[in-house]
């Protein structure tokens, strides 16, 4: 296999004309059967495979990806990582992910370029500052870092903000989470793929699941475009396509699929060294290492499986951006795209057994799946390996829609979903 990456290795390969690098992971042919089959080769699926091998010693694992790994939402998000949620269950989940991200480059021996540049959420009125204080208090009680910022502190962090008297959204103060940041999204997928592959996991690309094998009412594998593959346990981590797989398996989910779009500007010199979100506009942005502004906002309003954004939301996001930082009006947009996200009524994920025995699901991450990849993988691996919930994932079981014990982050946190 590819061997360890290190400064010494880089130097050696540099002297040898970089002729010694091997592919980072094996592109496998599917076998007839596995202990665990994971549908979906995005961040969550690959992380699940890695933690199955690393934490549970289960190596007869296949990750089935209908396209190429990391080509769905893992490659389409805005790379922000944060844990500024309201409810204890959510903070436990997302802060677990954040803690894993903090050690991920070392853990995977792969630089995921996690940059803890912090996130500023700007509030615009006394009432919004009270909401901000409520979220900060909740985060501190739930043992993650959060501070309330004054107007001066916000402007110290982001001097470019619109401070004009005629600003539609006045800067009143904000929320700061210093451990938040961004990571290289492709590297997260590739890093997990490389580490999982090194532990014996098969990564099978261009392998689309077309149906489930069901015997005696139990899922015992999948039909794919590359043949039948049997599995003792099957897991799905397919984000916006959860509903499609659920239809194949014969059940319905509390999930609606929407396009969530993002865009980048042309690259400019460093001007923004944090992640920035306005409560008022719902637009958020950060600056990539290449200098591009990476810009995102809310969901498109029309349910969609088309991986492209509609102009109305694009216009709203950009007009929000220009309200926040009028100087960015001079920039050109370089690219615009969309991913299909699985939105749940309470804006919290679903991790747990599906209604079809033998099939488990990890989905419903909606607009925030990237930040949760290490935790989603860890917890889903625990579920697939033991058949039991990890204590962090238990509240996120599908059962909550029957019992009514929702974790309503849509209403709870000061973040648009």
């Amino acid at each position, binding site marked *: 296999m590819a061997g360890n990456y290190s400064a010494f290795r880089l130097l050696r390969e540099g002297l040898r004309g970089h002729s010694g690098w091997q592919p980072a992971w094996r592109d496998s042919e599917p076998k007839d059967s596995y202990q665990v089959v994971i549908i979906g080769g995005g961040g969550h699926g690959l992380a699940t495979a890695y933690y199955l091998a690393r934490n549970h010693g289960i190596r007869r694992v296949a990750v089935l990806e209908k396209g190429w790994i990391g080509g769905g939402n893992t490659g389409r998000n805005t790379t922000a990582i944060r844990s500024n949620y309201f409810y204890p269950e959510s903070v436990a989940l997302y802060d677990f992910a954040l803690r894993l991200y903090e050690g991920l480059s070392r853990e995977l021996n792969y630089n995921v370029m996690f940059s803890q540049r912090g996130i500023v959420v700007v509030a615009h009125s006394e009432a919004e500052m009270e909401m901000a204080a409520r979220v900060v208090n909740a985060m501190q009680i739930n043992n993650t870092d959060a501070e309330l910022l004054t107007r001066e502190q916000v402007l110290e962090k982001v001097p470019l903000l619109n401070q004009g008297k005629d600003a539609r959204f006045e800067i009143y103060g904000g929320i700061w989470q210093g451990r938040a940041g961004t990571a290289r999204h492709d590297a997260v997928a590739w890093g997990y793929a490389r580490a999982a592959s090194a532990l014996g996991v098969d990564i099978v690309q261009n392998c689309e699941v077309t149906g489930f094998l069901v015997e005696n009412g139990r899922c015992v594998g999948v039909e794919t475009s590359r043949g039948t593959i049997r599995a003792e346990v099957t897991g799905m981590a397919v984000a916006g396509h959860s509903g499609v797989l659920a239809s194949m398996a014969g059940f*319905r989910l509390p999930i609606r699929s929407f396009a969530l779009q993002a865009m980048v500007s042309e690259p400019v010199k460093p001007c923004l060294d944090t992640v920035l979100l306005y409560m008022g506009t719902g637009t958020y942005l950060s600056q990539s290492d290449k200098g591009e502004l990476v810009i995102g906002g809310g969901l498109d309003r029309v349910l969609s499986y088309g991986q492209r954004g509609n102009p109305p939301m694009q216009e709203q996001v950009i007009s929000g951006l220009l309200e926040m930082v009028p100087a960015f009006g001079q920039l050109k947009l370089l690219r615009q795209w969309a991913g299909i996200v699985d939105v749940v009524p309470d804006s919290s994920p679903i991790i747990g057994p599906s209604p079809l025995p033998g099939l488990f699901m990890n989905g419903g991450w909606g607009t925030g799946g990237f930040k949760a990849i290490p935790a989603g993988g860890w917890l889903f691996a625990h579920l697939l390996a033991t058949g039991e919930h990890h204590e962090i994932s238990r509240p996120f079981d599908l059962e909550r829609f029957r019992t009514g014990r929702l974790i309503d982050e849509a209403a709870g946190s000061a973040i648009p979903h």
Partner: protein
Amino acid sequence: MQCFTCPFCGPRDETEFFYGGEAGKERPEPSAEVTAERWAEWLYGETNSKGPSREIWLHLTCGEFFLMERHTVTHEVFATRATRGEEA
């Protein structure tokens, strides 16, 4: 900007419309006899079709609900019609 055709007002910008839910869902009655499972299924269960889809939409401007058949990948609209007096 996509245009949807309100059966009452004609073609209008998509921003004037609001998604009301998938068509064909029937509220279980009487409530005293509805189990938690059935209620949850009615409240939250979604087919979330990839491809042709039958949906209830609201034209915010005129306040009328109507049925829209469209494709969730291509966004092509096949038909819109009033639900009044018809099965949704």
